[in-house]
């Protein structure tokens, strides 16, 4: 190649340089989701049985939709796809923005109206 050294270097550091490390490759360099916070135990379910590849969706997005045909937590999605949680959050943000997944954030203890969840867990554990 005859490209001058400086411009060749710029090709690697500008906005189109692309991924540097693998987790960021999957999110195309993004560290935060476009929408949502996605707690580790936020529950996710796909809104469609299948998604055809479209612009902006990578194989990992499609894998999440496939996985979330059954309800999964954010932590489970990360474990099954073997990707860091931060990466999964970004991908879920993309899917939520396209209405391809439904997300339910966890209940906080302070927000519980009564003891019914505690009692249900205690009874459920005893019945295991």
């Amino acid at each position, binding site marked *: 190649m005859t490209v001058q050294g400086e411009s060749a270097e710029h090709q690697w550091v500008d906005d189109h340089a692309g991924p540097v490390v693998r987790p*960021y490759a999957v999110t195309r360099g993004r560290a935060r989701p476009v929408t949502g916070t996605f707690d580790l135990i936020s529950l996710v379910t796909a809104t469609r049985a299948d998604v055809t590849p479209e612009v902006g969706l990578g194989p990992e997005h499609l894998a999440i939709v496939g996985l979330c045909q059954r309800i999964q937590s954010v*932590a489970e999605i990360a474990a099954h796809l073997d990707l860091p949680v931060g990466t999964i959050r970004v991908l879920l943000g993309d899917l939520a923005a396209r209405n391809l997944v*439904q997300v339910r954030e966890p209940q906080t*203890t302070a927000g519980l109206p009564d003891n019914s969840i*505690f009692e249900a867990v205690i009874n459920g554990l005893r019945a295991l």
Partner: protein
Amino acid sequence: MDYGHSDRPAGATPLPTAIKILVAGGFGVGKTTMVGAVSETRPLRTEEVLTETGVGIDDLSGVEGKTTTTVAMDFGRITISDDLVLYLFGTPGQDRFWFVWDELALGAIGAVVLADTRRLADCFPSIDYFEGRGTPFVVAVNCFEGARKYRLDEVQTALNLDPGVPVLLCDARQRESSKEVLVTLMEHAMKTREARRRAAGTD
């Protein structure tokens, strides 16, 4: 946080409620063993990748020069019913990852602090952490073979625990024993919550 478009159409089945319990304690005390003993699947592992400049940094230029650290968390799942799922998270053993603990502890219904009487001091940071946050916790003394048996009140005194904090013996490998620890925690968390509500109501 508002997810905007993620609402399910009216009339559809709502997603279950998820709650979490943390399993903390020193390195090698049996956290993942306990998670595995009660979980419906073998423990899963999830990872957070962190850079030395911290989390949530959007500018990734020069990322190749940063030290990245991977913090792994083992966790398991117990489906209580169609509308209630319990997750158990083993906390990262290294105490320097407090910010990961903060994320884990946020919204946690309670915590199990596993203790090994041969290395009792290993669980001090966990106890301090949950006391400081006001997270209800129980101390479960994992009975390792060859470890000297202590009375529970001796452990309670050695740990300088509030008298209300349950201390019990357990075998983290055994499902029944680990279940009993979780039931004790849930009962304690429920009592703690009621006491706080009463206190708030009389203020």
